[in-house]
């Protein structure tokens, strides 16, 4: 299988062609730096993304608190992880980096708060 990957390491946006099957890569062409090559390889084998969203919170002046995955998640799991985040209903106070969903979908990655929700006075 051949796949074109646009490199996002720097503003150059090199178009890198990766040829391979599953985890086996036969060739990488079109990169202009070593970091680019590395990016293209991992993007081909296993693309990952940081997931960010918001969670519902009660007892605070604002209805939502911002959340993120502590580390990048497999791209194909993003939509399913969103379903879990959708089910969160937190109670203020929520602190930054408080773990809200540990080990989401058995990935070893946590969903943590990035914002804060103070209790309403």
């Amino acid at each position: 299988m051949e796949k074109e990957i646009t490199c996002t390491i720097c503003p150059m946006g090199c178009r890198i062609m990766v040829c391979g099957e599953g985890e086996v890569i036969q060739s990488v062409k079109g990169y202009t730096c070593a970091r680019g090559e590395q990016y293209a390889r991992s993007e081909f084998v296993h693309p990952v993304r940081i997931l960010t969203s918001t969670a519902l919170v009660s007892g605070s002046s604002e209805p939502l608190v911002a959340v993120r995955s502590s580390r990048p998640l497999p791209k194909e799991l993003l939509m399913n992880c969103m379903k879990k985040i959708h089910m969160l209903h937190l109670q203020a106070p929520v602190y930054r980096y408080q773990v809200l969903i540990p080990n989401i979908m058995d990935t070893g990655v946590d969903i943590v708060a990035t914002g804060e929700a103070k209790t309403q006075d």
Partner: protein
Amino acid sequence: MYEITCDVAVIGAGPAGLAAAAAAKEQGAEKVLMIERDTALGGILQQCVHPGFGLSLFNEELTGPEYAGRFIEKVEQAGIQTLLDTMVLEVRQDGTIYCTNSRYGITMVKSGSVVLAMGCREKTRGNIQIPGTRPAGIYTAGSAQRMVNRQNEMVGKKVVILGSGDIGMIMARRLTLEGAKVVAVVEVMDYLAGLTRNRVQCLDDFGIPLLLSHTVTRIVGNQRVEGVYVAKVDQNRLPIPNTEMFFDCDTLLLSVGLIPENELSKAASIEMDNVTNGPVVNQYMQTSAPRLFACGNVVHVNDLVDNVSIESMLAGKNAAKYAMGQLPSSKRVVVCRPGENVRYLCPQKIAVSDEAEDVTIYFRVKQPQKETTLKVSCEEGLLFEKRLPRVNPGEMQHIGVSTASLSGKTLTVDAEKRN
């Protein structure tokens, strides 16, 4: 009338204001006051729940609230006073500020120096003059971002986004993750307005079509948006007849550019740059009114918050120096002139004093260009050149210059194409 005196007053507590206030305090200004119209510190960062902040400043990939959090902690620890939920009504060249809030009423602030850090606002439908009806469901991307991420309000279910600016692309992903259908992102230019990485991670990842060289020609719907017509454009960005397509949607988001928020600066009659739409500043981020400094998107629209912070620290530091009578007095002024394929330079002026200083000059190109040579010159000739593999209007560039090398009255930067 309630009165406050301080050494440095910072207007706006977004990324620019936070960094400026922290730096002013660090420089030794005793009383630093931040005035913010929102109920919390952090400005727009609080609604930017996505990652991509802090890569150059903290060497980490942070979200907006986390990035803001780093600075807020600093500001709180430093004992900087804040007036939240407070709108500034007027700034005067003598350092007097009138602002209003529910708690104190009209408040007069007397400050040794002032940092203008009000950020920017979004271009609207009116600015870009899209014909059609005027239904509900037309939002600027940033307003929509606030509604979705802070107010828990879904702006629509079926969305067309005009403009490939970063906020637009980020909202495309955000709305898709929340179950909306993003029909297309439409860009009038033949290149992407925002960062490539956002195209990959916000559009390509979710199969959202990007239509370059297209624009929205008409909005349809009497009450709520019912759809938009999109047409191909020619080299002059004018719609090509018979290329119109109808896109069924209930929402149109606009991500068509930002304008520095300078109502206060203009009312204070400081000199403005009509390319950046921001005040003319020197390398100290000092405006034509010596007491008034400016930084961040008030001065020119940045693409990375890290740059805003860096520039704003400079403004805060120098505003503190000014308030304490420590800013070097300049012997002469060098004017920075944009040359070939350069849209603007910032700072626009360099104050040369007895002491040699290193100055960073930020700029944007007009047109995307590969194989570019940057030439920095003064009247007497070339100072130095720098080769770049590629330049894009969407990506701000910078160069460093020492004031010791500036003998003439002007400094010119050209971005020439290499043959």
